């Protein structure tokens, strides 16, 4: 199981939890299983998120590996100027 940290306003959509446990070995599995376990997160997941895995930022690459001891943090989808 991977621990995924949610930002505060998402916690309301995940049974008031700021950290949830998800079965996942990759970025795609994490996002898919997160939406299935917590359907209230789906609107934000559909709008887009970025994910910090062990301090590095990822946007899209489904195959990005996630280990059980990885720090995984959902972030608002990053944009630049």
């Amino acid at each position, binding site marked *: 199981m991977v621990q995924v*940290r949610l*930002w*505060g*306003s998402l916690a*309301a*959509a995940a049974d008031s939890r700021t950290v949830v446990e998800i079965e996942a070995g990759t970025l795609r599995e994490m996002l898919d299983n997160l939406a299935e376990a917590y359907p*209230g997160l789906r*609107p*934000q997941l559909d*709008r887009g998120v*970025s994910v*910090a895995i*062990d*301090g*590095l*930022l*990822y*946007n*899209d*690459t489904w195959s*990005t590996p996630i280990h059980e001891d990885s*720090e995984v*943090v*959902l*972030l*608002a989808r*990053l*944009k*630049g*100027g």
Partner: protein
Amino acid sequence: MALDSDSDIKQFKIVGTRPPRPDGIDKVTGRARFGADVTAPGMLIGLVLRSPHAHARILGIDTSEAEAMDGVHAVVTRADFAEIEDDDYTADILDNCMAGEKALYDGHAVAAIAASSGAIARKALKRIRVEYEPLPHVTDVDAAMQPDAPVLHQERANETVPPDMGGNVMARYEFGHGDIEAGLNKADRVLERTYRTEATHQGYIEPHACLAQVGPDGQADLWCCTQGQYMVRDTCAAMLGLKQGQLRVTASEIGGGFGGKTTVFLEPLALVLSRKSGRPVKMVMSRAEVLRASGPTSSTSIDVRMGMTKDGRITSAFAELRYQGGAYPGSPVEFGAMSAFAPYELENVKTIGWDVVANRPKQAAYRAPGAPMAAFAVESAIDELARGFGLDPLDVRLKNAAREGTRASHGVTYMAIGLEATVHTAKNHPHWSAPLGPNQGRGVACGFWFNFGGNTCVSLNITPDGTVNVLEGNPDIGGSRASMSMMAAEELGIPYDKVRTVIADTASLGLNDVTDGSRVTFAVGLATIEAARAAKREMCKRAAMVWGIEEDAVMWEDGAARPAGPNAGEYPPMSLAEIAAIASNTGGPIAGHHEVNAEGAGVSFATHMVDAEVDPETGAAKILRYTVFQDAGKAVHPDFVEGQFQGGAVQGIGWALNEEYVYGEDGTLQNAGFLDYRVPVASDLPMIDTVILEIPNPGHPYGVRGVGETSIVPPLAAVANAISAAAGVRMDTIPMSPPRVLLALRSG
């Protein structure tokens, strides 16, 4: 020197030097072709009719009289676009390009004309009859959140917004950890203050411009100034119902973007006018249109509560941020809320962000979107508390600085980061100890930005005479053609002047994300290096074929293929030019490619220091000295890195001192021109000094870190802290224009 394990380079020879930029002569002689320089035979001129109302229902548009005029070839309104039902993001862009049921701000496009001359088009605009029902409007962010405020959209708030919020609140964000109240109770002083910033425009020199040509077979071409030709292609194709492969978009030279050219304004209108008229259509915005109808940044209102002990430890930090993003959802408040306290290690920290709509143009990204305003509030609060305790403001920042292992307020635990290095360097710089005169003050501030990578595609072609062309898909805003040529030359071991980098159109390379997020030198550089490595592998293979030895017995060194060791045999090195000359005989053309969605970009920090002088008679502030300290990972071309540092600082100075959107009581923009919207010019500024720190980014083969955005994050606060010190009164609203400073002096 940061090099990954795949590198055969022993020491940089080209990266880190300062060769001339390849587009320099064209730009100073006027030969460079910008958006408005493109023409086509039979070309029409397109112009836009814009709403004079801040908020009005469009009851009807009669274009018949205009259409009947000689020389008018097409008139379009929203009725000429298919509605987009399944994509709110693109639907909002369409509505911003051409109003639907309502005009939502002064300058909102309501119709467009293509005519055989600009004079005819201007006359024809006056013959379009629009029947408006003016509606109440709101332009201030705090007023827009009031329960009785005029509402722009019905039921657009997303699921994060509590039901009791006003109808203009579109989204809520919350970040942080710990217990704010418990932390405040440990403080020796708690500061509560509200900070305000006005909307500013990116202020690029070149107005939006494009030329569209749609053929009867549906094949379309578009030339435009943009930060991302692929974004233009995909957005316009969605609006016009075209297949992406049918629309080829070519980016012109670009006279600045800074985030403001990461969306479309004229391009879909020109395409529809061309489709309707059957002729090429050129459109160029006036400066007034750029200010009224393209995207400025948000105006903001931010409450900060911060507790500090008398020895400078921040015990608790809270910020509530309200950003209006113009007439549509999507202000960058989430990035303000994520970045506000990112430079600090805090036990108790929380931010709440509100995305608010108001009757202003749809905001567009502006360099580190959302972060400069948040940094203004937070860094001002730290400064006020530090000075109140008589503490050195740099020592306070060091005492609370985030470092490797710090869990940031947005939840991420940092890897190795460079914030402390920038603060230490600032503290040891001669600027910090230089004497100040009367009415002068010194301010410092720190800043943070994320950076990212994204979709990137590069081709590198070896020509028969041994010169090299690199094709990249990102418009060159900050000198990227030089940087790519340098990295290709470094990797291939050939002189810089043997490489020419060009910007490809959308039909010539795979998808490339927009030039934003400080991504190009990082991500396109990474792809360029990998494309060069692919070409080197092919050239080693060709040499092996000539020598009749195994491929893995050949290595690349100093621009030539060589036997990898004594067992490979004795052969004289084959240079790149020698291998290129016989390519037809050894298997055909030689090229390298690399396609990647670059992930894992490193975050970036900066510290800025500024001296300002305030005239107590007039309230005018003058910037006397300014120094930027920032980590670049590895500066590929230090001139361009310094240019990014200086440019960010200068734009921040303009934002801090003078630039603002001024709206009248009727909701119309009062200062839509560069005489009344005052950007800083060279004579307003000292030389901006820069100190480049090089703390390698492990996610890039050469250690490169994006540098384009972080430099605009600290200046608002640094300048405010300097002026507050000089004036002896805390400035909590920007711009700090002379009347505002004078008022503060008299009431402070």
